[in-house]
């Protein structure tokens, strides 16, 4: 029988071929059906406390939010379908989570926006063991979510067992694979802080100093998606505008102010103001005297385009007559000129029991400097300071320009002690074009702290160029975490490539075998039938021949 011969062939030839070809074939890669970039959730430690998703590699079957059941499933869902409860449940029991962001993040306002912000915040507040990724809106992912959802619907409304069986055979499955390099700890994560100053002039006595501080990093649930247009892009932009305008006045001896102004662009503002902390330690503990020791006040800028109220956050109310209270009075005066703007003072004591400070000025207040933060946000707990919703599209540019104008005027009033109209106006004033171009530059790239620790970062370099252009004695200092027990620890692989394979259930393969066997049997009979066909053909030709004869 031919079965024996097959056996013979297997014995005779097969092992030999396998030895030659198997290694070659093993190396050949498999082509993917669909690939898209995905962004991993935050993964970092702060003061030894772990935050975010702790793993990165995914190779699981895709399921929807309503059909997943075990840790062998990767839940794929839209952000808007996710609730805090289901999120916690998934984190505890599922294998992985892929969240598709809405098409347009700027459509969320009011209640819905607040819900998203709360959810986002709760996601990275605790550490989770499963990998969590975010993807931008993508039509393929959307289709897959829809398809999986309809499958689950039909599962529930199945009328007969035969139907259920058929659908379980014909159903499309999807395998989600993200091969990340691994979430290894980043060593040598240096956080840069740059500072420079404008030297003031006073014919007699000591020249007091004003320090203006802002941090340049942003934060959100996924590092690669945190563009931070408002927090703290607005702070950087207003500081750059102050630098530009004041350096113009300070360059002319006639219009030089009576204060030294130190500008500090600090890193790590979202991880407990590490940049400011280190910078201040360096300055106060250095043997040579530092300008900051004679500071009249330290002004911190944080999130200045979120609302129409400008809050002045202090940890101790300034004494009457002190520079800070004069500044506050000036701020009120200038604010009154704009009908839509309100100015409020907020007093919050530093909570020394807590590891995380609320505002950047607290870093300076702890070291007994007179410091305050200007922000359009009332509470330090507001989630708007760290969200992926904070994009360029969600920022009100007019408000930012107006607040920049107010701050420039207030500072001008304070430095030059002009009674009424500010020192700025006419051609030498806040330039909306300048603000817009900086906004485009800053908000076009994610600025999460772990993305900025690499050498020669583009954003940091452009900021440093700007500092060098206008300021004197520009210096960059680096905050290097201690080897043992570091303040902060970042982890790699902030992004990955998601591959979706469409797969069939195992039962499908069995059915396929059955079908193929049937087909082959048919072929077998067809071949055995060929002699009959042949004789029919012969008859046909014979008849024709007879006719032609």
């Amino acid at each position, binding site marked *: 029988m031919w079965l024996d011969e097959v056996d013979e062939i297997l014995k005779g030839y097969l092992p030999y071929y396998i030895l030659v070809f198997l290694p070659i*074939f093993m190396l*050949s890669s*498999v*082509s993917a059906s669909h690939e898209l970039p995905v962004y991993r959730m935050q993964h970092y430690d702060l003061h030894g406390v772990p935050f975010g998703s702790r793993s990165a590699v995914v190779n699981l079957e895709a399921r929807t939010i309503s059909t997943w059941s075990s840790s062998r499933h990767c839940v794929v869902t839209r952000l808007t379908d996710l609730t805090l409860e289901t999120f916690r449940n998934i984190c505890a029991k599922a294998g992985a989570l892929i969240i598709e962001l809405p098409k347009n993040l700027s459509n969320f306002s009011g209640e819905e926006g607040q819900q998203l912000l709360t959810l986002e915040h709760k996601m990275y507040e605790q550490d989770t063991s499963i990998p969590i990724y975010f993807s931008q809106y993508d039509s393929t992912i959307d289709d897959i979510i829809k398809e999986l959802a309809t499958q689950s619907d039909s599962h529930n409304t199945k009328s007969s067992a035969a139907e259920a069986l058929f659908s379980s055979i014909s159903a499309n499955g999807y395998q989600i694979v993200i091969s990340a390099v691994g979430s290894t700890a980043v060593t040598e994560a240096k956080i840069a802080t740059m500072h420079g100053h404008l030297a003031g002039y006073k014919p007699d006595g000591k020249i007091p100093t004003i320090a203006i501080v802002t941090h340049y990093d942003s934060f959100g649930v996924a590092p690669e998606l945190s563009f931070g247009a408002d927090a703290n892009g607005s702070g950087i932009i207003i500081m750059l505008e102050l630098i530009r305008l004041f350096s113009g006045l300070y360059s002319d001896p006639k219009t030089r102010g009576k204060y030294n102004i130190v500008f500090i662009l600090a890193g790590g503002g979202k991880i407990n103001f590490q940049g400011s902390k280190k910078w201040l330690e360096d300055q106060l503990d250095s043997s040579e005297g530092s300008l900051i020791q004679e500071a009249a006040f330290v002004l911190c800028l944080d999130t200045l385009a979120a609302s129409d109220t400008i809050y002045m956050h202090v940890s101790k109310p300034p004494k009457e007559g002190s520079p800070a209270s004069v500044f506050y009075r000036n701020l009120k005066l200038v604010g009154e000129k704009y009908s839509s703007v309100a100015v409020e003072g907020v007093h919050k004591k530093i909570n020394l029991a807590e590891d995380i400070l609320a505002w950047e000025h607290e870093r300076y207040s702890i070291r007994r400097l007179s410091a305050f933060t200007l922000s359009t946000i009332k509470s330090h707990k507001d989630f708007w300071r760290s969200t992926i919703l904070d994009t360029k599209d969600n920022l009100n540019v007019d408000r930012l320009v107006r607040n920049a104008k107010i701050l420039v005027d207030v500072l001008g009033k304070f430095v030059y002690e002009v009674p009424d109209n500010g020192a700025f106006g006419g051609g030498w004033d806040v330039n909306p074009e300048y603000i817009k171009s900086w906004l485009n530059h800053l908000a076009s790239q994610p600025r999460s702290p772990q993305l900025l620790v690499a050498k020669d970062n583009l954003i940091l370099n452009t900021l440093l160029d700007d500092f060098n252009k206008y300021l004197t004695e520009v210096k960059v200092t680096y905050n290097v975490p201690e080897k043992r027990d570091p303040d902060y620890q970042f982890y790699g692989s902030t992004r990955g490539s998601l591959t979706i394979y469409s797969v069939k259930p195992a039962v499908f393969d069995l059915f396929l075998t059955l079908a193929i066997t049937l087909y*082959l049997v048919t072929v077998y009979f067809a071949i055995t039938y060929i002699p009959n066909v*042949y004789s029919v*053909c*012969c008859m046909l030709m014979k008849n024709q021949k007879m006719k032609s004869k």
Partner: protein
Amino acid sequence: MTLYHFGNCVALVYVPYYLAYKQSGLSEYGAFWKCVQAGLIYMITQLAKMTILATFFPDNMSDLGTDFIGEFLKYTVDIADLVGLYLVLSSIPGKGHCKVLTAGIGWATAEVILSRVLLLWVGARGAEFDWVYLQKCLESNVLLVQHIASATLVWLWSRHDLNKNLKTIVTTLLILCCYKPLLLEYFVQILKLNAWLDLLVKGTFTLVYGLSTLTIYAGVAQVMGIF
């Protein structure tokens, strides 16, 4: 389970070839090495074809005029396949159907091994499921019939005792054999058929083609007295 799927596909491709080889009685003639010989000639022919395509054809087909002309010229090179088949037939001793079947099956087997094994191993074994691999397998089965028919026609064409009318028909069918993929491609494009219907059209066409070839062969064989 993916290796299992690969096994499914391999069975679908190769079992019909094996059945054809067994049932046609070639194994009784010990035609195995002749089939291998046919395969070798197939390889040489493909090499020659590729050399011609690489040497004389521009990268950009539209340089030759419209798309259709470019494609037409490309398929003209397939006449080399017929020359190759002729070489195979002339190098195989034997009579009638044995000779033709050896050439056809050897040729088709060489093609299926060279063009499908790697595709299936890389594709059907992967995690991704795609119907295209099953379609390719079925298409290979259709190609087996096609190649046997082509071999028969080449053999008929090479005979001197063929009457004029039949010779014209055989020549027409041979030319049709060359341009068949082109014609079917355009047919499918115009009707916008999906892959399965495309396969069905190919299968039907090849079946008709094979049957007409068989009829002609039957007539000639009767005249010559071989069965």
